[in-house]
């Protein structure tokens, strides 16, 4: 028997989708979390409702790494269709559990193999309604694993009770199956693999949640008043959670609502409605994913130009086009930055974890209303739909910023003097009034056509130019309001790594690995566009900058080159994507490759290289 490997391995379960395995897998995840061990789980599911192979992979990491581990240590095979592949995927020395009704030859001797009589044990479960049999069957493998890996039964019970909202019957039914699985394993299996769980105390202060739920709750704490949306994976659960949490958190004795959530007929209408509401003075939002965002293009331009606050969540999936609807990506960044015809600048927030999904959920409204502009929040499928350990959500530490809004009394105070697009404060942000304002000088006519400082239609060249330059001023002002990057400077490091979004933990892990080989690096996680002053400082502080991202073209790298041409020669992209969540191993590989390119020194060569590399490889 190998030397024990404690709290540092991965578990992957292959099942049939629609078979209810997510309950089982979440139980494992939560039980491990409850044992105080850092853990993360990723659902790799098909774009399909029922019957196709699906995988769930759990990373147990005593060091707290949450990125995907691309080695498979413990594999559970419940699906004949993916059996061969699952078997092959087990890392040498790993453990392979499988439902013994699957009749395939198991021809590997370099791993521990454990057949499980799932069907048999299931048959012994009494009174299980037929539609729940598959789900219960899955609990049996959880039971087997619990014994074999050393999962705490009380932790498991906590997870099961949480899942079934403490409803006695399902809890009992599932715990029974689970226990039977564990008992069978105790009686019948001999452990030959090294993987073990042992309680720690690293998760006590944390919660576990997914980013979409966090974003929804954050939005409710942000005072959300209007949301319109259209169903799309992986964003749907964000909008669907809004109603749940609005009902929970904003109930009124008279049963009436301080909000409306509308399922629109498509994404054009969804953003249109949100813009109408934002223009009307509501904290308004929509949420979507790539294809929906593409459809929102024309309206995004209107909101930018008519200066309407609205929040647009894009839970990124892999594109272009319909792409892989159930696979993650960071591929919408350049598109969002330049969305819409004509000149425009998008304000973009880039949450890096579930906690920030909550935080940006409420902050996005403050920023949108302060700046009177659409605010895009780019999350991704991995962050949005998977369960992550997280710091508990923190109640907003600032009051709502409703921006420069003038009501009747304000207009009276200023003797009615006001112009919708006047730059009174020289920060590019004008004052606005809201429909319903009864002051006789309050009203104005909003439009996507050229307009002067008083919102009057104008085709005058100088007026057009003045207005567009004010919008640049406003974008500059935005730097004061958007979240600053998170920076870890490292003394003596020459290499600075830049990343954003959900890849942070995997990048951290890759950096640790590189540091172990002697390559020290600083790190900055960018959290917004426009880039704030800290961004340029970080880039200046290092000799070589590598931008890590989960897309093909190195999109953040492109935007940084645009914004800082003088620094562009020392920027390199480490971009990769195939739909799977980031892993430390590809990040490390891509960083090293990117650093290689610095060895070719002269500007001339470097230029060629970059353009060639772009072409040939990235």
């Amino acid at each position: 028997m190998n030397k024990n490997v404690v709290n540092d391995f991965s578990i992957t379960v292959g099942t049939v989708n629609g078979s209810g395995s997510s309950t089982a897998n979440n139980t494992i995840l939560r039980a491990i979390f409850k044992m105080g061990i850092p853990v993360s789980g990723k659902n790799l599911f098909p774009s399909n409702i029922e019957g196709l192979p699906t995988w769930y992979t759990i990373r147990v990491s005593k060091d707290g790494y949450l990125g995907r581990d691309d080695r498979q240590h413990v594999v559970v095979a419940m699906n004949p269709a993916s059996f061969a592949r699952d078997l092959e995927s087990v890392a040498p020395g790993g453990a392979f559990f499988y439902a013994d009704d699957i009749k395939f030859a198991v021809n590997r001797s370099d791993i521990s193999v454990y057949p499980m009589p799932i069907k048999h044990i299931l048959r012994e479960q009494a009174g299980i309604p037929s539609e729940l049999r598959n789900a219960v069957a899955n609990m049996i493998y959880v039971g087997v694993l619990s014994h074999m890996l050393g999962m705490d039964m009380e932790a498991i019970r906590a997870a099961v009770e949480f899942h079934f909202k403490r409803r006695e019957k399902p809890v009992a039914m599932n715990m029974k199956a689970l226990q039977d699985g564990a008992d069978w394993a105790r009686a019948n299996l001999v452990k030959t693999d090294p993987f073990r769980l042992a309680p720690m105390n690293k998760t006590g202060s944390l919660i576990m949640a997914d980013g979409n739920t966090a974003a929804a709750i954050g939005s409710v704490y942000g005072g959300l008043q209007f949301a319109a949306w259209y169903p799309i994976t992986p964003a749907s659960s964000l909008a669907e959670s809004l109603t749940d949490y609005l009902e929970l958190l904003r109930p009124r004795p008279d049963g009436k609502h301080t909000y409306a959530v509308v399922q629109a007929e498509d994404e054009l209408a969804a953003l249109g409605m949100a813009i109408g509401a934002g223009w009307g003075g509501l904290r308004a939002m929509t949420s979507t994913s790539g294809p929906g965002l593409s459809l929102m293009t024309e309206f995004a331009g209107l909101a930018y130009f008519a200066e309407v606050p609205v929040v647009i969540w894009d839970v990124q999936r892999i594109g272009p086009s319909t792409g892989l609807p159930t696979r993650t990506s960071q591929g919408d960044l350049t598109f969002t930055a330049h969305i819409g015809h004509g000149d425009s600048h998008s304000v973009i927030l880039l949450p890096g974890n579930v906690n920030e999904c909550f935080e940006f959920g409420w902050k996005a409204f403050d920023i949108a209303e302060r700046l009177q502009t659409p605010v895009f929040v780019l999350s991704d499928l991995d962050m949005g739909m998977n369960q992550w350990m997280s710091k508990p959500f923190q109640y907003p530490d600032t009051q709502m910023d409703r921006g420069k809004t003038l009501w009747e009394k304000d207009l009276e105070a200023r003797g009615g003097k006001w112009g919708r697009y006047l730059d009174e404060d020289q920060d590019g942000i004008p004052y606005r009034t809201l429909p319903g304002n009864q002051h006789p000088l309050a009203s104005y006519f909003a439009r996507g056509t050229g307009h002067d400082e008083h919102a009057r239609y104008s085709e005058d060249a100088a007026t057009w130019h003045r207005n567009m330059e004010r919008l640049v001023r406003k974008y500059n002002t935005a730097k004061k309001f958007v979240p600053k990057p998170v920076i870890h400077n490292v003394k003596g490091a020459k290499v600075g790594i830049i990343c954003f979004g959900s890849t942070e933990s995997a990048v951290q892990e890759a950096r640790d690995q590189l540091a172990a080989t002697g390559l020290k690096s600083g790190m900055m996680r960018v959290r917004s566009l426009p880039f704030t002053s800290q961004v340029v400082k970080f880039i200046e502080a290092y000799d070589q900058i590598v931008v890590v991202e989960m897309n093909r073209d190195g999109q953040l790298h492109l935007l940084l080159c645009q914004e800082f041409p003088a620094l562009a020669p020392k920027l390199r992209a480490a971009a990769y994507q195939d739909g799977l969540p980031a892993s430390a191993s590809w990040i490390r590989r891509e960083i090293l490759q990117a650093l290689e390119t610095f060895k070719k020194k002269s500007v001339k060569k470097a230029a060629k290289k970059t353009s060639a590399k772009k072409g040939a490889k990235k």
Partner: protein
Amino acid sequence: MTQTLPMAGTVPQHTNTVGLERKDYIGNPTTLCAGCGHNSISSQIIAACYELNIIPEKVVKFSGIGCSSKSPTYFLNRAFGFNSLHGRMPSIATGAMFADHTLLAVGVSGDGDSASIGMGQFKHVIRRNLDLVYIVENNGVYGLTKGQFSATAELGLELKKQGVNEYLPVDICMEALVSNATFVARSFAGNSKQVKELIKAAIAHKGIAVLDIISPCVTFNNKDDSHHSYAWGKAHETPLHEFSYYPHREEITIPEMQPGDMRQVDMPDGSTIILKNLESSYDPTNRMEALRKLEEARVNNWLITGLIYVEPQKASFTETMKLVDTPLNRLEEKDLRPAPETMAKINAMMF
């Protein structure tokens, strides 16, 4: 039949009961072509609002893109307005009406705006019964882009630059009806009185009120035999009834009419519509009859005008969504942000 002006006599002739003059309802000078049907409709919107004693600040105007969609600039200067994107007026209006559901929403669109690019939003806003007066200024062409056929152009229409239209027209009223609109009317810009009365009733209506108003484009589609021309409209208009709107029930004085000659529709706000039958009796509360009438008109090339369908009692969209009475855009942080205590509870709800 005479209509008593509300509270006539108690205020000077030239101000209405809210103390405003007609000029308080006007907009900027029009930049549309002289004679454009859209201008007459703007005038009737002005007249209707003035006569109904509406406070302009209580109105909000919406439009898409097109000559028609420019019109909100030409009436009710004191109202907020949003000239949005081509075909997208309905969604903008929807969101905005949630901001202050106590406002009166007036939307102006064109046939291109609503029946071509905007078909989807047009149908869906009707389905939701948004509280909106939805006027389609229907001229059968794209005026602003210089006269291409729109989807309401009749089959066989021949225009100099465009050739012959090969497709059957979209019937705005029929579309509204099958989308379960709760108020559907057709009129003709040349019939100012009817346009005005219908606008008044549409304003009184709760929920969507679709007004398909044939509004000639004098520049690009006003040949005598074109179905959207002044000449054709004048020659073919077939009113379903003489239509009158009474803001207050008490004021109705119809001395010379027999009950059999007329039909009365009560609106939820206490106002009343009186339909004086012309040739035959038409019941605009009967959907089947409305369908039949429109189909008959289509087959026979009649320009039927008047109130085609009304269902006065159905909940409007903002009612369906059960909003608090205060306009949402006047709510404050305390109404919107859950209390600090709730945070711990929420965290506890996570695992």
